[in-house]
């Protein structure tokens, strides 16, 4: 199948970003912020051995299902403040097929946002966007580098990206209008402009699972949170 290992990398958790039952106070000029980090003790997977389109993809690619630093800092974890509307519009989605991987691996898009997919690779990719475990939203061929194809996503949820010609390629779009952040390579995230209140803070990762936490946001005082996901 083009890679040395097969097997499902289905997400262990599907955060559905439903409305919060917490007593959130969204009005008010004063706001606070939630910062934190996500770590894991899970080891990253070994690189994938590529046997298809090696002239473009190379013979080996990093397995980005778990991207963790030496101290366990986890990238590509999505942290959501349940019930809080995002205070800024997320940029429209961009799904780039780049060197036989999706870039970015994980992104946040707003419901009904325009999605552009493109490629840097002179080979056929397909951008197959599927509601996690269900309906295919779109599956478009991206056969030539530089082409830009526009699509749209509708309601909130988790969208899995795959390529039908390179089965190891995986990406995720978290479609939500809630306050959401993605951890960087340092495992850190920041949610700013949060109205004071008590909230549920959820973490989602494509391969790992972490428990939700309750946070109290006070105006002008950053709250620090640590998720340890397994």
């Amino acid at each position, binding site marked *: 199948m083009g890679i040395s290992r097969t097997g499902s990398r289905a997400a262990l958790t599907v955060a559905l970003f439903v409305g919060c039952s917490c007593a959130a106070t969204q009005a008010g000029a004063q706001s606070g912020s939630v910062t934190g980090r996500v770590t894991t003790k899970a080891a990253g997977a070994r690189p994938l051995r590529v046997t*298809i389109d090696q002239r473009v993809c190379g013979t080996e690619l990093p397995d980005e299902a778990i991207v963790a630093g030496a101290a366990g800092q986890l990238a590509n974890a999505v942290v959501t403040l349940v019930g809080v509307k995002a205070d800024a519009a997320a940029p429209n989605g961009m799904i780039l097929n780049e060197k036989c991987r999706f870039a970015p691996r994980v992104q946040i898009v707003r419901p009904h946002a325009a999605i552009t997919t493109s490629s840097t690779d*002179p080979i056929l990719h397909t951008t197959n966007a599927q509601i996690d475990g269900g309906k295919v939203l779109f*599956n*478009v*061929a991206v056969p030539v580098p530089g082409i830009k194809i526009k699509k749209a996503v509708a309601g909130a949820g988790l969208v899995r990206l795959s390529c*039908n010609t390179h089965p190891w390629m995986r990406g995720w779009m978290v479609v939500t209008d809630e306050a959401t952040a993605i951890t960087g390579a340092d495992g850190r995230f920041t949610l700013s402009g949060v109205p004071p209140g008590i909230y549920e803070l959820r973490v989602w990762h494509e391969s790992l699972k972490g428990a939700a936490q309750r946070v109290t946001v006070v105006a002008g005082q950053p709250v620090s949170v640590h998720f340890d996901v397994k």
Partner: protein
Amino acid sequence: MAALAAQPPPTTIPEMWDAWCARCHAQDGSGKVIEPTIVVEPMDFTDCRVASPEPDADWELAINAGGPAVGLSAEMPGFGDSITAEQTRGFVAHLRGFCRETGWPHGNTNFPRPIFTEKAFPENEVVILPAVSHRSTLNDVNLVAVYERRFGKRSMWEVALPMASHATTGTARRQGIGDVEVAIKHVLLARADSPAILSAGFEVALPTGSAVRNLGRGTTMFEPYLAAGTVIGSTYLQAQAKVELPADRAKASRAFVYNLYAGRDLSGSPDTWTFGVELNGENNELAFTPQLRKGLTRTGALGAAVGVRIPITGRREQGTRLVSYLLWEYLEPVRARR
């Protein structure tokens, strides 16, 4: 990057096929590749029974909008944002070219089936045709089950089992099997460009229905016919002319039967609505049948039609009939495997 530079981008349809489509469909169109990257094995286009019978419009839709647009696998992506309409047509011609045999009637002559007019294109179908009529002194319920099977490149045989139930005022209802028909059909001419098709058929109706109970004609009937179809603009025209010749003229009369159909699709999808009307004649009797057809699945493998046959002449003898069919193209996928 030197290796990439050495590989020029594909510019012709065969080059694009090899660079893009062959990953899943194989260079030879067989759908068999050494390292498959998809779950559902593609159709084998080298099999002329696969590559020939569908109209170009269905293939073009699959290429442009992806498999789900025609009820097939979502693993087939849409290329409509990446290629021109001319290139789409080129891909259809290319995939049809994997069928190396000549003589298979082109799918562009595979028109939607009317209710009465015999379709000229050979099919692998099971068709159930229920009909209900009511006249002043008689009411009928008829149901004909038809099994059709292609053989060779251009031929088809079929067997039809009619069942009838009718009652005349003041008498008990009579029901049973009617005259079983067996038939063959052969395509004489089929033209892909400016699509047109002409077929000849021969039906034999065996006297299996009781003539006494008015369920059969009591004698074998020989019924040669011609069936033809074409499309003008986006309107299908289909016609059939048939002579019914009884083995025993004391028991049944000769008849000349003719049907003419005109109809058009509301969209290019295999599950489109098709509106049509038929002119139906038998000797001096004439009727017309407005009708509506719908593909019941995205693949079009299931379809249904309903119409009303309204007499123009001989109103009392013919009566008004509610007519319909339900068909299943049994070699076609009803829906995609996942």
